[in-house]
């Protein structure tokens, strides 16, 4: 079973926050550091199937949640995953006061800037966590 760091976003469907989380995770696992990170489908984790529980329990996880409901973090914890770090988009957006990043369907230029910059920061943590393994 892979010990890559699992980056799990909430992908919330109703607001831009979920899309920001999703795009950050995809950028990290597909572009910035695919050699040390991977993602899993959160909906699969929510099913509670043994197969995904086994996978989520191998290696450490970073969760990225859109809002204080913390769906990704709670679902990963319920599946027995070890969460090394929890990120919240609402906190990230405090660094971009007044930002209008787009909507739940599509990001605009401002949204992509937030994704690119924050994904780099989270990826640095991914690499540190992988290095500690």
């Amino acid at each position, binding site marked *: 079973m892979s010990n890559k760091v699992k980056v*799990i*976003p*909430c*992908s*919330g*469907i*109703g607001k831009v926050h*979920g*899309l920001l989380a*999703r*795009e950050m*995770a*995809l*950028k990290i696992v*597909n572009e910035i550091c695919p050699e040390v990170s991977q*993602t*899993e*489908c*959160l*909906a*699969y*984790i*929510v*099913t*509670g199937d043994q197969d995904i529980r086994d996978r989520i329990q191998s290696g450490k996880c970073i969760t990225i949640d859109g809002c204080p*409901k*913390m*769906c*990704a973090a*709670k*679902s990963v914890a*319920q599946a027995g995953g070890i969460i090394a770090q929890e990120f919240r988009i609402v906190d990230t957006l405090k660094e971009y006061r007044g930002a209008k990043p787009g909507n*739940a*369907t*599509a*990001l605009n230029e401002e949204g*992509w800037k937030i994704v690119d910059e924050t994904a780099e920061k989270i990826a640095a943590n991914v690499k540190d966590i992988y290095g500690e393994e």
Partner: protein
Amino acid sequence: MEPIKVGVISCSGEDCLGGTISRLAARKILERIRYGESVTICLPLFIAGGEEERGFAEAYPTITVDGCGKYCAKRATEKLSGKVTDVVQVADIIGKETAERTALSSRNLTPEHREMADKVAEEIRIKFDRIVEGNFKK
């Protein structure tokens, strides 16, 4: 008669293209095709939320939109919320091999991907209208 609202829940899977398409198609229904007549919920709120969230599939006739044959949205909804009224499965529409490709950032979507999302949205619309026309009310 009070118009019914129909729930649309996508798996939004992060690990394969089918999940990306499921999310895009669901957003299309919610935002344009059946705007005002459709409602959704973040699927993991069935774990992280409260009684109100878990009551979603009891409150609305619900269509789940899944990226692949694992049917995570359907199974999670039925396990944690209630029986779904209909299902749409992306791989049935765009092919298993395509649906299992790597999940795409919305930045890298091509016209071909948008066409896939349109096809899936049309399938959702057909099932959606069937529910409304059947005057199905939970």
